[in-house]
């Protein structure tokens, strides 16, 4: 039986699944209900000087009939009285001593940081998460991503927090930067015990084309919000992996961004996350999604011989290489399984219009397209558009060439195979 318990920067939880600091972690009653469903931890919705929110607050991108593939919000930090939040943190920790309760904080002055940190720890927080990520509203007031985008400010505030805290400190990073590494390193220099990323991405979710106003609409105006949901996962995976592979960066990561099921969570863990935070999928489907996440992760660990989460963390990081170090002589071609092909010919049109014109109609009259393997560059596009699972596979070709990279080639070493499709 695999052990799902996790230790992220010294914050322990029965499993690596935490609620992210967001509406699902807004109150003690919610978080306790989430723990009853199986969530291992929660990052309390950010505490600071309570704010007032607007109406409406959320928008979503639907794709091909699937609702809310991407999501954004212009909601701010907690709007509930601080004493109520702190009392509920205390009650929650008392009822759930083995679960992780991390308190997210966002204030301005050194004195405020000191005061809030003390109150959070006095309430029983297992860890703190410094919200340097919120890309809307709070950044206009000099907080959130305004801090996260300035490594010096990040480092300085982090160092205050670490000085005042007796529990682990995570710094939540904003993705609204060109390169995440300097920001992760700033947190590390400030003494952070770990980082959490990504926060939401600055976005405009859509425009009401009849009213000609951005969404989500607040009367006749709107503003940019924070983008999240399944659509942002690739951006989040990249940033997590960038830090995980950085030679200088060596503190734990709590991964966030588009996690909707156990598979997504496994990806974050393999790229270096020791806990995984979820918000949007919970907002869309409820706390009960965690049952499948736990079961799916457990089964994955069993089938891949992992006894602990620690053994999994970062397992895919070494595969993240520079382009110049990829083997140029590795060759694949598309194979279409005629017996499962349904004849939609989406692969053919994609190849003709969007790739290298090597999938053709069968001259014998069959609807099953034919791959010209001498021209196929192995780009994957046909496999991506195919609606039938496993109908198109990318088969490795033994072309007789020894592995050779672009960098080797530029250094006058290694022999590259002839180009395909370049005429």
């Amino acid at each position, binding site marked *: 039986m695999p052990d799902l318990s996790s230790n992220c920067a010294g914050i322990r939880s029965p499993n690596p699944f935490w609620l992210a600091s967001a509406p699902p972690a807004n109150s003690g009653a919610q978080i306790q209900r989430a723990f009853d469903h199986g969530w291992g931890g929660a990052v309390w919705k950010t505490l600071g000087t309570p704010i007032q929110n607007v109406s409406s607050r959320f928008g979503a991108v639907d794709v091909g009939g699937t609702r809310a593939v991407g999501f954004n919000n212009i909601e701010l930090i907690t709007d509930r009285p601080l004493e109520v939040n702190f009392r509920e943190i205390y009650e929650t920790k008392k009822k759930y001593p083995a679960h992780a309760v991390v308190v997210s904080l966002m204030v301005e002055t050194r004195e405020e940081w000191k005061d809030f940190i003390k109150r959070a720890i006095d309430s029983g927080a297992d860890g703190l998460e410094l919200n340097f990520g919120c890309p809307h509203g709070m950044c206009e007031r000099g907080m959130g991503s305004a801090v996260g985008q300035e490594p010096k400010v990040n480092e300085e505030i982090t160092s205050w927090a670490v000085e005042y805290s007796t529990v682990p400190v995570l710094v939540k990073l904003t993705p609204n930067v060109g390169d995440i590494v300097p920001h992760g390193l700033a947190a590390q220099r400030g003494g952070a015990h770990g980082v959490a990323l990504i926060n939401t991405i600055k976005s405009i979710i859509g425009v009401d084309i009849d009213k000609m106003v951005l969404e989500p609409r607040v009367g006749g105006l709107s503003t940019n919000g924070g983008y999240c949901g399944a659509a942002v996962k690739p951006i989040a995976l990249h940033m997590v992996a960038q830090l995980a592979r950085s030679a200088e960066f060596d503190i734990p990561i709590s991964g966030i961004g588009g996690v909707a099921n156990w598979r997504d969570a496994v990806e974050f863990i393999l790229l270096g996350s020791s806990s995984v935070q979820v918000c949007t999928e919970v907002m869309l489907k409820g706390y009960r999604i965690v*049952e*499948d996440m736990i079961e799916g992760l457990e089964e994955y660990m069993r089938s891949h011989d992992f006894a602990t989460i620690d053994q999994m963390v970062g397992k895919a990081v070494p595969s993240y290489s520079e382009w110049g170090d990829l083997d140029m002589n590795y060759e694949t071609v598309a194979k279409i399984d005629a017996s499962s092909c349904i004849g939609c010919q989406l692969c053919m049109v994609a190849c003709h219009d969007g790739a290298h014109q090597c999938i053709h109609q069968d001259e014998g009259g069959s609807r099953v397209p034919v791959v010209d393997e001498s021209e196929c560059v192995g780009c994957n596009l046909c496999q991506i558009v195919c609606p039938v699972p496993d109908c198109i596979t990318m088969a490795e070709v033994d072309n007789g060439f020894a592995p050779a990279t672009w960098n080797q080639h530029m250094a006058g070493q290694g022999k590259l195979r002839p180009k395909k499709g370049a005429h």
Partner: protein
Amino acid sequence: MSKIANERAENVFTDFKAPYTPAQALVEANRCLFCADAPCIQACPTGIDIPQFIRKIATGNVKGSARTIFDSNILGMSCARVCPVEVLCVGKCVYNEMGVPPIQIGKLQRHSTDVAFDEGWRFFEAGADSGRSVGLIGAGPASLAAAHELRRHGHACTIYDKRSVTGGLNTTGVAPYKMKADRSADEVQWVLEIGGIDVQTGVEVGADLSWDELVSRHDALLLGVGLGPDTELPVDGAQLSGIYGAVDFIERFKLGAVDLSDVRRAVVVGGGNTAVDAVRELVGLGVAEVTMLYRGVEAKMSGYAHEWAAGKLEGVRAHWQAQPVAFEGQAAVEGVRCLRLDDQKQPIEGSEHVVPADLVLLAIGQSKLEQLLTGLSGVTFERGRVVVDEHQATAQAGVWAAGDCANGGKEVVNAVAEGKRAALAIHAHLGGS
């Protein structure tokens, strides 16, 4: 335990609802809305968390999906095939409210449970030995579900059945285009793999084994004996050959060979689900002309409308508002003499006529087993059913009842739900928590 014969007349049937390929299951699973407080769950007598098991198919966690199903309903494999989902879970899918085709819950459940059987996944272990023992009479769905649940709590179980085959009506009565007898036998094996369930076939309680002996052997008893033989129609000519009870006839072709080569025209008397099954089965077995003969009108028949609609598509004929008054023929039946009935089901004078038939199946109900159970003191009956409370307890302390003998004849899924409910009550009675 006896094996199901390989050569069975039912083998000519194929699935009315074909199983999903993995790709089909994935497409359908991704359509599920994952409703909260879902109406489909409320419509399932065993309360399977349907949205959760479907989500697990969608994420690739088929094993977890099967676990969710079996945790609520250990006979989830057969229920996926035999449940009238059109009037249960699928009928309550919220997509119906939208005019969108409802989620095919039965087919998705079949997908997960079939994969579980194929892969040989095991989910449950027997509880620590409680030192207590329960006797279960009848080896059908009610007893199997109860015994499995009792084993999870560590109670020893012995199932007694007078027949040589186990599985009850799941083995001997399910329409073969839904499930065949060997698949039911597979399921019985699967249930028994939890261990600690002793199955004694060929033992008729009351004849081979006295009720007093049974009571002395066990700390609690569960009655899961089902219903008795087909009700007969006591009219002139009832002794002619070619006239069978429908349940009896169905068992014959499910477990062995039947020769219908001389049968051109068959009549099934009745309008319930057994009648609807029987007419469709006779068509499938190759009878050229099959007629359902029912006293009422089409709209009032108790058989499921969706099953009857399928029967009509398959070519079944109907003879509505007719009352058999005699069977015609010399040695073998040649026809059914009938009277027309009016809307009040009163005979219409001068309406006598003969419907030709060289095979007649009677699907007008099954007798209750009150007589069998008379040797067991304290158990009370009402309209032939064993009277039970909300925990399936009979009036006799230490005796519970579940399935058709207590509910008068419902679905497999009802028997499973009642068997499990009884098991939990028995567990509490035996000091469990």
